[in-house]
């Protein structure tokens, strides 16, 4: 009797968990509208972290691309074609990203993909898109080697199908260094999370900071799944820096900032676009005032082109905010759509138009939500506008915007 009861309980649990996974997958499925009568179908994909610690950014990316696709359909941007949207979750992990990439490249209707968020995921899925000949436009990969190849002293385009709308760490790190030096801060400690993004950012920062006349008093690393930073904070505190530069993302940076201040290390923590999210302030708590972040582009609120995006996004009624990469995702999707305007009308099917789309992307030029969008010979965005943001009264406020060369 007991056994049967337990078996019933267990199988109930099993069914419940199956139902759960079902739900989870449905959430990641496309949200685009149903088929239009008689039109040919082309799909724009998305690979982004839709679950896990970085899902705040991933959701903003998904919604922004969804918005661009809906707008293109509404304005009938490509006559005779209906665009659909297919979102896949990469859980911010290269392995899950590869699965998502394989799934999307295996779909004959997919003509272009926006994403991913993480440079480490980008690194893993570039070859998959290269061999499928499908353009991959990242709104957020900032590691310079993704476009210029492993040897940055002899840059050569690594993947002809890979583009990005954001600026890179070799610009962002030095920009942060210049800002701190201009604020009179001469001694910093760097901490990074050893991921492609964090390490690249911290290295580029440290190099530029030392060249600018500053001293890097301590270079530390942490594990991305750490919760307790007290030991590393005490070590950094003993070195006596005036600021900490963190290469990594907000799920660690928030708690790190909070633990720094609680341990009596009341100096600003500065990071890249990976910490530029309201979730950072939420996690870091009230002591995060004065913390800094650089992010690519001018503040969305200050650009005319961005205002249209912001109001359309608000009107669409998405549950999540557009987050740090919303404008870049929207621009990435629109870059693909611009290219499709050239490549699709004469094509017989989506898969036949893939190489023409890659070619057309190289020549795309338009005013996007984040600024001018055009790609150089490496697939990088030609615009190099950056902004420093500062936490003031529990919100990110723009402190300085500059066209950084």
């Amino acid at each position, binding site marked *: 009797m007991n056994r049967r009861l337990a078996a019933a309980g267990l199988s109930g649990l099993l069914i419940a968990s199956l139902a759960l996974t079902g739900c989870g997958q449905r959430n990641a499925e496309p949200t685009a509208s149903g088929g239009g009568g008689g039109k040919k179908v082309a799909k724009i994909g998305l690979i982004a972290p839709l679950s896990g610690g*970085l899902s705040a950014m991933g959701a903003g990316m998904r919604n922004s691309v969804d918005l661009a696709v809906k707008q293109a359909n509404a304005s009938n941007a490509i006559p005779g074609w209906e665009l659909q949207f297919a979102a896949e979750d990469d859980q911010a992990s290269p392995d899950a990203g590869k699965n998502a990439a394989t799934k999307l490249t295996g779909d004959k209707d997919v003509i272009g993909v926006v994403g991913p968020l993480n440079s480490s995921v980008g690194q893993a899925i570039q070859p998959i898109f290269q061999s499928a000949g499908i353009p991959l436009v990242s709104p957020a990969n900032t590691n310079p080697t993704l476009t210029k190849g492993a040897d940055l002293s002899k840059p050569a385009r690594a993947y002809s199908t890979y583009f990005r709308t954001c600026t890179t760490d070799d610009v962002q790190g030095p920009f942060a260094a210049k800002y701190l030096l201009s604020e009179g801060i001469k001694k910093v400690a760097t901490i990074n999370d050893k991921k492609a993004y964090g390490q690249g950012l911290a290295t580029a920062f440290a190099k530029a900071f030392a060249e600018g006349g500053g001293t890097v008093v301590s270079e530390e690393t942490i594990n991305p799944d750490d*919760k307790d930073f007290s030991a590393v904070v005490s070590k950094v505190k003993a070195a006596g820096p005036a600021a900490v530069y963190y290469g990594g993302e907000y*799920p660690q940076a928030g708690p790190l900032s909070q633990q720094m201040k609680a341990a009596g290390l009341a100096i600003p923590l500065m990071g890249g676009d990976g910490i530029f999210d309201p979730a950072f302030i939420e996690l870091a708590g009230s002591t995060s005032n004065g913390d800094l972040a650089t992010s690519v582009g001018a503040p969305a609120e200050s650009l005319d082109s961005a205002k249209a995006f912001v109001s359309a996004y608000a009107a669409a009624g998405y549950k999540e905010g557009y987050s740090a990469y919303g404008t870049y995702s929207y621009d990435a999707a629109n870059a693909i759509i611009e290219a499709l305007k050239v490549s699709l009308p004469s094509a017989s099917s989506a898969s036949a138009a893939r190489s023409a789309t890659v070619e057309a992307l190289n020549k795309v030029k338009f005013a996007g939500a984040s600024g001018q969008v055009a790609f150089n010979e490496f697939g990088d965005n030609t615009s190099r506008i950056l902004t420093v943001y500062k936490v003031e009264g529990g919100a990110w406020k723009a402190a300085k915007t500059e066209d950084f060369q």
Partner: protein
Amino acid sequence: MDLLIQQLINGLSLGALYALIAVGYTVVYGIVQLINFAHGEVFMMGAFGSYTTWMLMGSPTNLSIGVALGLVLPAMILGGVLVSVGTALLMERFAYRPLRNAPRLAPLISAIGLSIGLQEAVRLFYGQIPGFPDSRRAIPFPVIEGLTGRSIQVGGVTIQHSAIFTLGALLICAALLWWFVNKTRMGRAMQATSQDADTARLMGINVDKAIATAFAVGAALAAVAGVAHGLRYNNIDFQMGFMAGMKAFTAAVLGGIGNINGAVVGGLVLGIVEAMATTYIPGQFGSSAWKDVWAFAILILVLVFRPQGLLGAKVVDRA
């Protein structure tokens, strides 16, 4: 010198957190020889339970220190304990008891399944409760006035109130546990069951109840650890049990699995090794990213020379 003392305190308070969780592994192993790999999730449920209690109280903020420490915090601890003890008892009843006489691997796989199931359940459903925050990402833990973010300065050493809370909680819990196991009827029944369950049953001991009590005791301590975690790190998330559970299990093995004092010592040693390795190992191997490597290296060394753990495992030989 300040740095040494500072890191010792960092290590002790981190170790106290490990120890509180490790006791749950060791108590359960001691009585049924089962590694309850879902114990990390019991810890997570405790943290979410205390957060839920705070939400149900109307998410009170900006309280006076007296109300925060005298009323809100005890209520949160109680709520956390109720949730995690409930989780552990259900787990024991429906996932482990039917498998008690099955081959050893069956309950182990069952534990891993439970661990994944609980994480996913919190991830998917917690945020669906109206008014509750999205649980797919880290949730900021409530500010407890007088504890959160406060610290005492002793010379060059900073001692955070949350560290004192964690160490104090460990001391009190360890003392209560010692009293419970050695001085109460139920504690002695647990000891008897752990020595020989069949004979204990013949002597009129309710073995099922003794085993369930072991799960409940471990869960209660894990819930206290969950609150301590929230106070120290200011956030909780559905994955927090995984790494913490791993470390606590390591601590339990380091101290000698099945030995309650061993779990406490193992936790503290592990915490101190991590803090010291971060500071005192030079070069790139000394960085915080390598601290786990050193912690596990110590574990391997201890197990090579003392396979029974620092204080000796309590392994019952069954004929």
